[in-house]
């Protein structure tokens, strides 16, 4: 099972429209990614809340189609 970087971007954008997203396929297997996401919507939120926003955007694909997504969320 795998998920393309573009699909992940689309899912995140849908939930966090102003997000600036950089995704790296760390293992080259469409299953382990690292993402840096910048958004105004993160401001005033804890890291846990910020990461949860991203996980919610990806929904149940997280942990299933997508094994690993390292996150770095940044408020702008």
């Amino acid at each position, binding site marked *: 099972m795998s998920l393309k970087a573009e699909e992940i971007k689309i899912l995140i954008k849908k939930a966090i429209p102003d997000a600036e997203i950089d995704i790296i396929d760390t293992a080259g297997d469409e299953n382990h990614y690292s993402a840096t996401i910048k958004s105004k919507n993160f401001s005033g939120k804890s*890291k*846990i809340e910020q*990461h*949860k926003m991203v*996980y919610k955007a990806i929904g*149940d694909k*997280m*942990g299933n189609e997508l094994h*690993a*997504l*390292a*996150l*770095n969320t940044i408020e702008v």
Partner: protein
Amino acid sequence: MNEVTRNKIKELIEKDEVCLFMKGTPEVPQCGFSLAVSNVLKHLNVNFKGINVLEDNEIREGIKQYSDWPTIPQLYVKTKFVGGCDIVKEMFEKGDLQKLLNIK
């Protein structure tokens, strides 16, 4: 998640001050992310309890609901969910993890 699982998780996080829900054990982690968090705690000489979710599927699925967090590893300190691998690493780099664990 059923009540039995919820109580089991509650007992685990109340019993040990620092609990790491992980894939594998602190001695033999089965996933790079679990390894990373386990190594941070070892580096800080923290006495922690590793809970291998691969040995108990109800805990594995239950802990995700308990914390409303979809991935493993998950670190709990004093019954509170601290975060997954990225957050723990970031807190370690900033010194926030050391503060939380009262390490000078």
